[in-house]
């Protein structure tokens, strides 16, 4: 079943010259890990906002087409109502702290309290989420006193605890160090394993290649390429849109330039090494 469906979506921000999104048609299956890549200004963030209903409800502007979540058109739902089905995580962890809680524990409980979940159930779910996100160690810390990476995990956990079916995540790791990036991705993967649909905008292509089921390449407001990570990263469109390829694919391509053909398109460096040492490769004369 499709979790998110966009049909002929074209959108222009108020006061801006041309559309940021042009004729977008996209279906994301339930439980799929779908990454959106592309150069700056390609419309990735706006696409996320459209899925979440912020476009056009919050940003106004000219919107054409339809967005369906689990088959339901969201045009008539309020942003608050859509919040129950679609979660959203931003780039800057600082702005995602509610600003009114004194501990990570309360920060996770905040959303559930707003929805009127009974206290005993809130406590149970908070404990579970602290565990899942690996943030039990700082449950009593002030959210503002945490590092950026810790804050981002708290922001993600505070959103995941709402148990929406779809989680839209916009460049969650762009301000984080490698270790924190891995931690955040581990949490996103855990969320997917719970059966949620993940829509992720990300610049770290190694991670995109490793975790995604499907990759959407955006450019100039249009979908330029779509498919498995292997398909998209080997598509010439990826290079022409200035995408930094994952290390393994980049290496495989360079090796091909030196006459070494690598079977398949290994998405991680270990996979590349495995493919090369598997003996199935051959060196051209």
């Amino acid at each position: 079943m499709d979790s998110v469906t966009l049909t002929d979506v074209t959108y222009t921000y108020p006061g801006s010259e041309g559309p940021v999104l042009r004729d977008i048609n996209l279906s994301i299956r339930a439980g799929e890990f779908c990454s959106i890549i592309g150069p700056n200004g390609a419309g990735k963030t706006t696409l996320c906002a459209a899925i979440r209903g912020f476009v056009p409800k919050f940003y106004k502007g000219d919107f054409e087409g339809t967005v369906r979540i689990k088959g339901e058109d969201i045009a008539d739902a309020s942003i608050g109502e859509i919040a129950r089905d679609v979660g959203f995580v931003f780039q800057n962890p600082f702005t995602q702290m509610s600003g009114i809680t004194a501990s990570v524990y309360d920060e996770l409980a905040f959303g559930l309290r707003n929805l009127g979940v009974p206290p005993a159930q809130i406590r149970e779910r908070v404990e579970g989420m602290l565990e899942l996100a690996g943030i039990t160690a700082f449950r009593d810390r002030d959210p503002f006193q945490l590092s950026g990476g810790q804050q981002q995990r708290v922001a993600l956990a505070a959103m995941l605890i709402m148990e929406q079916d779809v989680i839209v995540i916009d460049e969650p790791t762009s301000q984080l160090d490698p270790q924190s990036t891995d931690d955040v991705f581990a949490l996103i993967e855990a969320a997917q394993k719970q059966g949620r649909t993940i829509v992720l905008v990300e610049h770290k292509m190694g991670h995109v290649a490793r975790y995604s089921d499907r990759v959407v390449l955006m450019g100039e407001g249009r979908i330029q390429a779509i498919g498995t990570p292997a398909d998209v990263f080997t598509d010439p469109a990826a290079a022409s849109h200035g995408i930094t390829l994952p290390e393994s694919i980049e290496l495989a391509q360079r090796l091909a330039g030196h006459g070494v053909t690598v079977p398949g398109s290994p998405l991680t460096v270990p996979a590349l090494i495995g493919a090369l040492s598997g003996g199935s490769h051959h060196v051209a004369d």
Partner: protein
Amino acid sequence: MSKLFAIKQDFTLMAILLIPIAVAVNFVGGSLALALKLPLYLDSIGTFIVAMLAGPWVGGVTGFLSLLGVSITDPTSLPWAVLAALVGVVVGTLARGKMFLTWGRIISSIGIIVLVSVALVVIMRFLFFGGFTTSGSSLVAAAMMTAGMPFWFAQVLSSIVSEIPDKTITVLIAVFVIRSISTRTLLKFGTGSIFAEYRTARKAKKKAAATPVAAGTTN
């Protein structure tokens, strides 16, 4: 009732989130002015910006909360919460009346704000403290009276001397900040959209003025 409903409409989520930031800006501005040893208060920049973005009622609440916050460490400031709220309302009303768009109007607005502040300072100082406090402008008034000036004249003059530079610079900084905010963000705020629309209209006018010239040169 309909009026009350209109006030409630001013308090959008964006406006609500702006209030804590504005109060913090007031605090930081005030303590920065002290740290830099400037002869000004500059403790209402946040209130002015909020009033310009979200209108008189949100501006009033911001001013009131700011002084309530100050009063926790200095309870003698409590009465001035009323003054700060009223100044916020005045600035918001002026902004809604498109009075911060052109330099001519900005100067008249500064005049109005100074007049209102001076009147309120003098009246409130008299009502709450009998006319004298330990503030700088109050001591100046006392000195002027020693020099033989009448009570009200000294009160008004000493307040004007301290209010003019403070309110002028506060308005200028607020206008500068508003002008640095993107049109897209300005449109998110009720009163802020007035600035955005003015900006868009001016751009369109410039374009319209430029096109015939360009057409003329190509002919």
